[in-house]
């Protein structure tokens, strides 16, 4: 089995910024805030966050904030809850949460909760349990969870529970590993994991591991490195991660590395990107791969960052 090409991945992540003119980066321009979160969290897990100019990153993040308190995916783009969480997470990584007006960000998120407890992604009203997780995670990092109706939020998530123990986007929606991460994560952060059918969901999740060792996101689909994060973190939060083979999964993720130019792809020999590089590194961290900082399965931030938020005075 190969080893983690840590240095090459660091170089790959740092190089993305210089390829601003490539077609991929133009297509992804509107979600640069997510990209920043993926790249910087991966760098932190690899122990190389200090190579960056903090002030530059922080001032760019702040230039994406709107009057409403929400953040856009890039300068000039509309505010959305998706990018608001990424902005808050990156600021938490750098221990710079003090640069934001906490109440303003909080008010933005609070304004997106609907009567039934669900959350909209922005003023245009798309509802999805992804946004429930984001709202809960974001407010939790800001110590403002009490500003929303948590009971209703939890109730809405439970209304999206399926026969297989998993969760969908909205009531009746099919279970999907990404969605399950969001719902289980939101329930974890609100102390509500007793409402999850852990054995049933655990069986569904552990059956995501296919012969190659990789994990898929739904039954009868191809394995993909990004599910190393979504399936694994869910299995960890419900304490069923021993139901899969860690060794096989580690091998699958390492097989998806570009050992020449750095970066990790969805499947072996596919093109790498920052999204899968982050999910690969974060997955290895959850698998206790040596040399990586541990990551928290619910906040999706390094454990030391989470501990700093909750256990320092």
């Amino acid at each position, binding site marked *: 089995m190969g080893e983690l090409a840590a240095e090459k991945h660091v170089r790959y992540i740092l190089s993305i910024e210089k390829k601003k003119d490539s077609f991929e980066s133009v297509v992804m321009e509107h979600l640069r805030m997510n990209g920043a979160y993926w790249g910087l969290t991966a760098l932190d897990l690899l122990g190389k966050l200090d190579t960056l100019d903090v002030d530059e990153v922080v001032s760019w993040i702040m230039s994406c904030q709107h009057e409403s308190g929400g953040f856009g995916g890039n300068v000039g783009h*509309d505010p959305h809850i998706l990018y608001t969480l990424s902005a808050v997470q990156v600021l938490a990584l750098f221990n710079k949460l003090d640069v934001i007006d906490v109440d303003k960000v909080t008010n933005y998120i609070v304004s997106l909760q609907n009567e039934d407890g669900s959350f909209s992604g922005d003023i245009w009203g798309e509802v999805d349990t992804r946004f429930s997780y984001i709202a809960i995670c974001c407010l939790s990092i800001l110590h403002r969870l009490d500003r929303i109706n948590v009971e209703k939020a939890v109730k809405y998530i439970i209304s999206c529970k399926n*026969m297989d123990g998993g969760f969908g986007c909205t009531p009746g929606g099919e279970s999907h590993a990404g969605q399950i991460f969001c719902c289980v994560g939101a329930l974890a952060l609100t102390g509500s994991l007793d409402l999850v059918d852990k054995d049933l969901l655990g069986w569904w999740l552990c059956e995501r*591991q296919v012969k190659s060792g990789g994990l898929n996101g739904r039954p009868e689909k191809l394995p993909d490195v990004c599910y190393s994060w979504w399936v694994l973190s869910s299995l960890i939060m419900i304490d069923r991660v021993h139901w*899969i083979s860690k060794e096989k999964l580690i091998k699958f993720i390492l097989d998806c590395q570009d050992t020449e130019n750095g970066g990790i792809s969805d499947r072996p020999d596919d093109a790498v990107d920052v999204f899968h590089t982050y999910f690969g590194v974060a997955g290895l961290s*959850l698998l206790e791969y040596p040399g990586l900082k*541990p990551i*928290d399965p619910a906040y999706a931030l390094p454990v030391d960052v989470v501990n700093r938020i909750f*256990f*320092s005075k």
Partner: protein
Amino acid sequence: MHGRPRKSLKQEDEAALSAKAEKLRSLQSQFLVNHHNHIYSKEALDLSAKLLEINPECYTAWNYRKLAVQYNLSNSESNSDSDSAASIFDQELKLVENALRKNFKSYGAWHHRKWVLSKGHSSIDNELRLLNGFQKADPRNFHAWNYRRFVTAVMKRSDEDELKYTEDVIGDNFSNYSAWHNRSVLLSDLFKRKAEGFFPKEKVLREEYEHVHNAIFTDPDDQSGWFYHLWLIDQTVKNDTPLLVSSWPSHGSNITLNENNYLHDCGLSLLNSTLSDTRTLPVILYFNQAVEGINSSTVAVKSEVLQEDLVWKPLSTNNSSTAQIWVAYLNLNNTELQLSKTYSIEITIGHSMGIVSSNGYHYGDPSQITFKLCVQTAFKEPVEGQCAKLTSWKDNDFQKIDNFEESHSTVSADHRIPTTSNWCMEEIDEEITNFRDLLSDCKIGKLTLARLLTALDLLSPQHDKRKYHTEEVLKLYTDLMKLDPTHSLYYKDEHSLVLLQQITSSGESLLPHCHYYKNATETNTSYICLRLQNLSLSRMGSIQNLLWVQMLDLSHNELRSIEGLEAMQLLSCINLSHNKFGSFTALGPLRLLKSLKVLNISYNELGSHSIDTRRYLCSSPLAHTEVFAWDRFEILCGSFSATKFWEAFLIFESLNLMDLNITGNAVADENFTSFIVKVLPTLKWLNGEELS
């Protein structure tokens, strides 16, 4: 980015791509200028359409389109021209269709379509036709299925028609998990509202079994039908009504209290000194599922020893108001109990409404628990109690019990089994025959058979114990561990649960595991210890049968957690040494054991793991279930780092341990030892040595 090969491009391709990038970049920047300046001219709209057709993920452009629609509508409204409203919306639908052809998975495009339709100016009738085309091309696309549920709800299309649709889709190809899923959603709804032809559900379920057999028996490796089949089993056997499973004291038992306040349970001396110190007696109610509403009006207690209403508390590890286990403490402090007199205590449950499950079902089986209390002259105990001495867990301190005396009656398991319909047993029986005949040598066949047999045993009346299939089920799980090594620990966990069910199912089966614990200097006292050591258990279970246990040896197993152990409110000594506990949070249930004095957690994996799998299953500030007790932390151990020690502080701060053994764990260095001594001021013995 998914499914793109990792090869470097040829030069001409690279040039073409960079031209494309340049074009997209200029579209995007022009679009943003229009957006920021609120320009909604035809040219500007065309430009945004062009952008979205190339990059449907550009969410800001969809937002702009909505603003443009609103702007143009308010302008056309002044002309009161409803045709033009429809045409404005039609344009949007067309654009979404084009965008979806480019990227079928674009959240923004799907939502835009929903937004347009919800305005009510467009006909919904085209939508199913469009969807049918899309769903043929990609039958598993969950966006399309979600949109389908939206459209059928708007159209008020019947569940029965949609059920027929999933049937057709499955008919084309049974390997379609999305269709099976949607079937479960539709059927759940039809069952719930008892729709005509779907109540009682027996006939429907029988057909569904046949339906899914086609999938499973045709290709047992295809997972599409697996979870649906398991759901059918659950629909067949599950009991929605909350029921009482067991209690302590159990119905008909006699509890003997000692004159010097030592509690006796018919010759089973209760070790616990806390109980006698405070003269309180726990009453434990164990339900088949989490319930709320246990209080003095739903649970009536009649007894002359009762001075005040009992206060019922949910035993939950997350401060929830619903719980499967509820406990109350009977306070005997102010009661003059006469020697040799028997006091009767009568508990009636569920005679008035109010006990409700989380799904809204009401308690279904009004029942009564009667037990007797009496006071006896006691032998003299040393005043200090047994914790003046170190608890040893050596084999030669235990003595086998040849047979239970009559006075040991409470040891035997007391679980109630609800009556089930014949139909349910027959259906499970038939499934067992099917799987035995057709699929007994592959993974899903063996697993399903094991589950069916377990379900059957749970349904069988207790006097049929001899017909239990435990041995067969254990063998199936052992086979599965070899057959499917990737998931071997899943099967091992299931194996452990079945094994514990077997061991705890009767007094007879418990007997070989019950030992007298001989405390060397107190020859006249002997306690019963339940020894489940060395059974290669990877998981704890059947706790409802073990509520009577005060001393428990679980050492030399492979346990990672003790979920549910909080129900054992009498527990005062526990040995967890030589297991696989990986974090302090895994010990969370111990926080609810008020009587716990002795804990052996030596030779585990505390401190060896960077990832804590119990972190969110334990009440903590991270899960917002409690506030970190900074004040207490600073008083007790202010010089230690909270980020490093918070988990240990959380667990041990609420315990009153006298004897703790934590050797053989990576975490247990000198620094930790000095920390733990501060957090546990009651501690007398640490790692086998007396503290000075």
